[in-house]
Structures are given as C-alpha cells and as structure tokens.
C-alpha cells in the first residue's frame, strides 16, 4: 500500500539494481550467517550493489575473519553455530575491532534489539526483512558518502542546514521548518547520497523501532519536499521505489 506514492519524483530507478550504476564506491563487508542460501543471495545482491561481501558460516570463523581482515561493515546473524552472534560482537569489541556491526535476528523482540546494541552492535534488523532495507542500512553504516558527524552545516547542492542555529536555507533563501521536519531533513542530509528507508526515518526521527506499515512517513517526507522544492526548479529529495528516500544533488 505504501509503495503507491503518487509524488512527483517517484521515477527513480528502484530495487537492488539501482546500485549497479557504479557511483557507489567499493565497500568490503563481512556477512556472518549460517543459512547458506540466505548468505548466497545476500553476497550476490551486495555484489550487484557494488559491495564486496565475504561470508563466514559460523561464529568462530566469523570471529577469526572479522579480527584478521579489515571490513567496512559486518552483518552478523544473532543465532550462529559454534559461537553466538552477540558473543562474536562483544569478543570483536574486546579485541579492539570497531567495525560497525549490523545484527540480523529472527527473534525480533524489543529486548533482543537492546541486547544486541548493548553488546556493541550498531544497528539491528529483525528477520524477515527486505533486502533493500538491509542494503540501505549497510551503506549508511559504511558511511562512505554522508556528511561527517562533526560537520555543523550540511550542504546538498544549494540547500544548507545549520545544525546549531537550526536554520535551513536554499539558494540563500530561508526555509521555515517544524522541529520534526528539521530532524527529518537533518537525517536525510547527514546521509546524503544514500538511501534512507522509512523504518530508518521512524527510528531516527521519531525513535520508534518498527516498520511503520503505512504511508505515514511518506506524508511527512512529501511535506518536507514541498517546503524545500516548491520554489525551486531542481529536485533534491528523491523517492527510491521499493526502498526509501535519498537526498542528492544531481549536479
């Protein structure tokens, strides 16, 4: 239902294929997953998105590969043979490996997410999930494009967002945003050039950790879009069908 976004910019390329446009720089990730079929699908889909994915099928070899090689992101299944995913992460952290970790879990409970993040995970995705959701999160964790954390002003094209004064300008013209719209735009611009899913927006802007199920996020995004694009020719905020949103200067 939510995919029927009838907005002006719903014409971008969609699905996993989108990433094959070679703009995505190479990223190297490690997938620790005991379900071989799921892992094979994942590594293939990541490769199509321009990401090199190594695979480990149990906790011990995952721990070994994770501490011997340097990866941009690790995707760790919660339940693994020989060593539990949570234990792999805490052991990696103990060994000083600070690679961002995304936890995949079939349990998908609130406690489970908290336990995973407490052990040193950086993000959490319950199964079943859409691959586009996983891809978007891995790319954001890899953080090859987004603005550095310490930047006080985010810029995308002629759009500027000042994190201190909470001012937003486009081509020098001030745009007035509601507090929530500001946070929405801030998160999108922080991850400029990367796909941000609706679930990620709900997580970071509203602090709820579940799939919004409906078009509620789309309505907020379209409001924001009309504010930042109404009087300007060039669209910045794109809808990535089947995945989410991306803010990007097509330059």
């Amino acid at each position: 239902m939510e995919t029927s976004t009838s907005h002006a910019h719903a014409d971008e390329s969609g699905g996993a294929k989108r990433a094959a446009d070679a703009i995505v720089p190479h990223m190297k990730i490690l997938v620790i997953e005991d379900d071989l079929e799921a892992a094979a699908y994942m590594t293939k889909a990541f490769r199509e998105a321009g990401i090199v994915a190594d695979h480990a099928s149990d906790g011990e070899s995952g721990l070994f590969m994770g501490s011997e090689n340097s990866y941009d992101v690790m995707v760790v299944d919660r339940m693994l043979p020989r060593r539990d995913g949570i234990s792999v992460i805490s052991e990696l952290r103990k060994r000083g490996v600070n690679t961002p970790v995304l936890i995949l879990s079939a349990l998908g409970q609130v406690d489970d997410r908290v336990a995973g993040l407490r052990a040193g995970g950086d993000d959490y995705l319950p199964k079943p999930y859409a691959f586009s959701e996983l891809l978007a999160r891995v790319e954001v964790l890899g953080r090859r494009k987004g603005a550095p954390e310490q930047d006080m002003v985010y810029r995308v094209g002629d759009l500027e967002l000042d994190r201190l004064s909470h001012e937003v300008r486009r081509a020098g013209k001030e745009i007035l945003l509601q507090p929530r719209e500001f946070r929405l735009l801030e998160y999108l611009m922080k991850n400029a050039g990367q796909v941000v899913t609706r679930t990620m927006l709900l997580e970071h802007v509203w602090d709820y950790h579940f799939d919004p199920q409906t078009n509620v996020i789309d309505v907020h995004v379209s409001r924001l879009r009309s504010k930042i694009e109404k009087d300007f020719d060039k669209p910045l905020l794109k809808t990535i069908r089947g995945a989410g949103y991306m803010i990007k200067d097509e330059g």
Partner: protein
Amino acid sequence: MTSRLRLMFRSTAVRLSALYILLFAICAAFLVVYVTAMSERILAQQTRENLVQEIGDIQRAYDRGGLNGMLRIMERRARQPGANLYVVAGPTGEILAGNVASLQPGVLDEQGWTRFPFSYRPFSESGPEREHMAIANVIFMENGLRVMIGRDLGEPGRFRGIVRRALMVALTIMGIGALFIWFGIGRNALKRIDRMSGASQKIMAGDLSQRLPVGRSGDEFDRLSESLNAMLGRIERLNEGLRQVSDNIAHDLKTPLTRLRNKAADALNEDDPGQRRAALEGIIAESDQLIRTFNALLMISRVEAGSIAAEMSEVDLSAITADSCELYEPVAEEAGLRLETSIAPGLKVKGNRELIGQAMFNLLDNAIKYSAGSQGEPLVRVVLSADVTGIRLSVCDNGPGVPEEKRAEVVKRFVRLDASRSKPGTGLGLSLVEAVMELHGGSLRLSATNPENAQAPGLTATMVFPPLTS
C-alpha cells in the same frame, strides 16, 4: 487393596498425619508423666504432714501417760482401718510392739524421715504376707527405745496405676481415631488425585477444553485445581490463537502469494523492458507487503506470549499520545480530516513505549483510513484522560463503525469486515492493539462514537490502562 494401602502410605497426607500422631503421643506421655509426678509429690507431702501430726499426738501421750500411755494410744490407733504403721523397737532394732511383722533392715538405724520408701510386712489376717512399701519417721527416745510411725504407700501406687490405665486407654482411643482419620484423609485425597490425574490424562490426550474438578470446600486441592484450570485456560487461549494463526496464515496468505506468482508470470512473459520493470517492481511491493504481514503476525504472537514483558518501565503516555498525533496529523490532513486532541498532561503508565506507540499508530491509521470518504463529520478525536479506575486513551472516528455484534470479531487476526476489504490493510491492526493491552493488564474497548447516527456511527477504540500504582 494392598497396593492401595501401599499407595496410601506413600501419600503426603498420610505421612503427615502419622507424624502428627507420633508428636501428639509424645506430648501426651510427657504430660501424663508430669501430672503423675506432681500428684505423687503432693500426696507424699500430705502423708508427711499427717505423720507429723501423728507424731505430735504420740509425743503428747508419752508426756502425759509415759510409755504405757503411748503404747495404749498406738494400739488403739493401729486397730483402726487404714491405720498408720506403728513400731516400738528396742535399742538394737528388735520390734517390741506395733502393727508391723518385719521391716527392711536398717530402717530404724537413723532418726528422722526415712530417706527412701522401704519395704515391710504387715501382720496379715489372711493369705500370704505380701511386701508393702512405706515411708516413716523414726524417733530415738531417751530410754533407748525407738519409735517409728509410718504410712503405707499402697495408696499412691494405686493412684499411679489409675493414671497409667487412663493414659493407655486415651492413647488407644487416640490411635484408633487417628487411624480412621488417616484412612479417611488418605482415601479422600487419593480419590481426588485420581480424579485430577484422570482429567489431566484427557487433557494430555489433546482435549484442552477439559478442566480439573473443583469442589465446593475451597481447600488446597480446590485452589490447586483452580489455578491449574486458569493455567489451562491460558494455554487453551494461546493454543487457540496459534491454531487460528496457522489456519488464517494458510488462508490469507494464499491470496497475496497467488498474486505474487501471477505477477512473476506476467513479468516473465513481458517483452517490453518498461512493462517488465513495472511488473518486477509490483512483485517487490507485493513481497514487502507480505513481509509486513509476517512481521505483524510475529509481533502479535510475541506480545501475546508475553515475552516482551521484560521491557516494561514507567512511560509517559501523554508524550506517546502527543507524538503519535503529531506523526499522524499530516496523514489525517491529507485525507481531508481534522485531527483533534485532548491530552491530559503527565499521565504515566507501566508499559513498553514501542508497543503502546505501535498500538496507537494502528488505531490512528484505522480511524483515518475508515473516516476518509465517509458521510460523517471529517474529524478524528484523540482523548487521553484518567480517573481512579484507570487511564483511557480513545481514538474516535466518524466512519462507518463496527456493528455491535461484530466488535468481538474484528479484533481477531485477519478478520476484516466486508465493507473494509477494499481498503488497504493486513487485518492485524486491532489484534495487535488487543494483545498489547492484554500485556499491559488493560483492555481494548470498541464502541460507537455517535450511536444515534445510523449513517456514520463511527468507531471509538479505547485503550484502558490500569491506574499506575507506585
């Protein structure tokens, strides 16, 4: 019968009553021994006092009438029935006069009270002479004679006999009574346990609607049965939910899966790249929807199983309500509706913010979805209020509503009214809300917003939270 008896000895009730009998018998024996000892002491005391008086009399008789006077009075007294013992002995201890035939040697060697009861032989009128026990006081006179005045202890001995017999009788009666009670309790308990295990065997065989028998006495067995029955009720509900889920999953997922398959077949047959792409995107959208449905189902099951209970803390319900309304306000506006709120500030409940938030999202989503395009007033009202009975969070719409007889139905998984089939949705929204409320010890109540308006009665969904007790 022997196996029954063996079973009975194994039963806790019987073992306990045996233990009680033993303890009681020990206490009773102790009591009897104590009472006997005490009464013997009192009797001995009385005997001594009696003897002291006797000695005084004899002394006075001697003072007044000399040896002869004393002997006379002793003779007279000795002849009375139940008389004391009188002995007048020479300096060497040979008995000169009195009503005693012989004495245990050494009794007359010391002046004053005999230290222990001693044996003696009285003059008996008939039959063989028997040994008697007595206590006595011995007086050494100036002329070398020794006078002993004593009392037979036959009486205290008889008293002890009576007490012993009484004790034996009492213990026997107690033992027999205990055996009866023991048998009664054991048999009763066994019977009830048999009935309980009979019922549980039926339950194990798969009939979850069976319940354990509950008597009227409200005793331990009944309380046990009641709590086991409550447990069975919960298991039955969970099981029923599970069965319903699997049935409904099979049934309701068939449709989208068939759609998915058809779209895949279309995509395969499509030659035009644009059309094929559109078909593939449709497949992705359809799969996403399926994933959502699965996620919602899993969520409901987990909430119902209570496994998220660990994450409960004090949360600000007013803030959650305000956040949800803020989130949905543009959605309502886009649907041509006003979202009106009346939120009492600072209301807190013990709960899980994520779950309450999700329940609230579901209610708002429903309200907006079903109000849009209805004939009622284009308004969704959210009211959060509290009183002593609880905290109420209501979402009221002016849509077509739910007929009263269908209200219990629509909270079930995948149940959707025919009229709403055309609207998007999984049919799981209210199921989750209800599960969440149950987890929070509250309830979900459905009512009509405007019962008098037949065209658009509307639906008011109220989440009732128990009051926060600190």
